[in-house]
């Protein structure tokens, strides 16, 4: 098993390398002269040359790439012009906010999508099947930034159920002590129920917005793969041996149907991390997405590059986890690995 995981880790290396090469290309493709840009608008010719040498821009591209790798490894991801802080520090500070939002959104989507897909597949043609079809077609058509706004309008402005859609906590609540950076977990660890409720109510709308968007591909895939598996020969064998319908549905059908769903999860993460940026902007969520957008608007490129790299690394890692999970469920994949 360990060997299989190691093999998968090694298998992720080309993707990792590709990601770094692309981000490197993106940093060198900045409009105009990067040195002039990093020296600032008031930079003299000398200052520009100094920056050029400091950034290694006067060397050949392969050399620059090696320097880039070295800097990345050292944790030197550049500085934000607007805040003056190292990009890596800024990202690390904001990452828990983004992760908390993304994970809660994903969990919500999975909790709804998988039972929905299973029910739709076991009762083809029923109302729940039609509901599933409706949700999957409509769901992928939703612009997340727009659904977020609609939810905010309805639940904050009209109904008053949700707090003002600004940030992770209302201004009257102080953040819990830092342990994991996830407010939900940290407030529970601190035994502070009030903060937990405050954090959860701030989190609810953005997380639902994200969930609505990624629910569709998940439910669609679950339904399709469940339908396929339920008509498989081995399900008939299980039924003929008189196994309990729940046993047939879960141990036999569902675990097999999970395999294509796990594969889809990779695409779902891609959607999730992308729409996360939009949702963070809508709800003024202080995560790495908002940070990148602010930097982008201010033409502050180092944080944007850092953000793209961080997201890509996160995505490679998530795909690796999916791979490992796949191996756990499917003995055939374990053997091939």
């Amino acid at each position: 098993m360990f060997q299989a995981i190691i093999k998968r880790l090694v298998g992720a290396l080309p993707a990792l390398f590709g990601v770094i090469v692309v981000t490197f290309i993106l940093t060198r493709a900045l409009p105009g002269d990067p040195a002039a840009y990093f020296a600032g608008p008031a930079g003299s010719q000398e200052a520009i040359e100094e920056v050029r040498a400091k950034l290694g821009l006067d060397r050949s591209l392969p050399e620059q790439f090696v320097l880039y790798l070295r800097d990345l490894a050292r944790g030197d991801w550049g500085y934000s012009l607007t805040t003056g802080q190292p990009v890596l520090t800024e990202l690390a500070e904001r990452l828990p906010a983004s992760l908390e939002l993304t994970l809660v959104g994903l969990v919500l989507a999975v909790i709804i999508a998988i039972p929905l897909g299973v029910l739709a597949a076991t009762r083809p043609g029923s109302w729940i099947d039609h509901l599933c079809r409706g949700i999957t077609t409509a769901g992928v058509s939703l612009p997340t930034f727009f659904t977020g706004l609609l939810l905010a309008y309805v639940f904050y402005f009209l109904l008053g159920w949700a707090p003002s859609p600004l940030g992770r906590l209302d201004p009257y609540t102080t953040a819990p002590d830092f342990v994991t950076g996830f407010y939900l977990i940290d407030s529970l660890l601190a035994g502070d129920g009030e903060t937990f409720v405050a954090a959860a109510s701030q989190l609810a709308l953005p997380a639902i917005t994200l969930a609505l968007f990624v629910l569709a591909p998940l439910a669609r895939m679950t339904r399709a793969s469940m339908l396929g598996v339920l008509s498989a020969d081995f399900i008939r064998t299980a039924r003929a041996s008189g196994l309990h319908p729940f046993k047939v549905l879960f141990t036999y059908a569902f675990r097999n149907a999970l395999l294509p769903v796990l594969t889809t999860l990779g695409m779902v993460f891609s959607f999730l991390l992308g729409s996360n940026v939009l949702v963070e902007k809508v709800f003024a969520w202080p995560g790495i997405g908002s940070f990148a957008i602010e930097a982008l608007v201010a033409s502050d490129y180092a944080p944007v590059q850092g953000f793209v790299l961080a997201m890509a690394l996160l995505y490679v890692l998530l795909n690796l986890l999916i791979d490992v999970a796949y191996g756990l469920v499917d003995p055939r994949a374990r053997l091939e690995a």
Partner: protein
Amino acid sequence: MNTANPALATRAAPGRLARQWHTLRYVVGENPLSAISAGLFVGFVLLALFGPWLAPHDPLASHVGEPLSPPSMAHWFGTDALGRDILSRVIIATRLDLGIAVAAVALSFVIGGLMGAFAGYFGGWFDRVSTRVSDTIMAFPLFVLAMGIVAALGNTVANIVLATAIINLPFYLRVARAEVRVRREAGFVEAARLAGNGELRVLFYHLIPNVMPPMMVQISLNMGWAILNAAGLSFIGLGVRPPEAEWGIMVAEGAQYIVSGEWWIALFPGLVLMLAVFCFNLLGDSLRDLIDPRRRT
């Protein structure tokens, strides 16, 4: 879908047409939404073509009405903070939004399709390189990659198109590569080769026409997503700049007003955007059902 024998396929053409017509009617009858989406599609195309003549007001002119006035007979969709007519802006934006998506999809279709076809047909180093390129693109969360590309290349509409094209490229490349690969050794290809056709001629005249149906399905499934991506990029302030009318940016402009109750500024462009994406997704599903009934889910 199985046109392994072109001679047979041509002979059976009338029957096949009739059958496709029958399937079309079946698909539409089965799912009346297909008919609705086809109608919507025509509507969007008309708006894109004739928008400037259909818009009741100048989309850029401020103070054509009282600022921030809700929908009324004079301004069906209301007016924004500058007193611009939202209906006119929504109509005018159709051309830009669809234009970006169509251009991006066309670009990735042509480049991705050709790369995929070559990779699938010739294999070898080109296959390895192009597969590696597409895998590398797919190793990014795609919207984030698009952000990075626009940030690096410059904040222009052309770069939005390019970025959207790049993140869509792998899908076309993969479909074309896979479809060409399975047909590379098919009987009709072998026959064309034996008839003295050069490799390129076989590829362009015999293989590529055969992989068009799945590619068309890919296009229609992809359009909605391309629109969504482009609108998302302009929502966060990339590409299209105010005062230009574009659905994503209009939603962004309305965002700050929605919490104070002026819902119409963001609602109408958002709804139309949603409708456009919905329409293309439905069309894509119907087209897939029509061309490849086996993959119906």
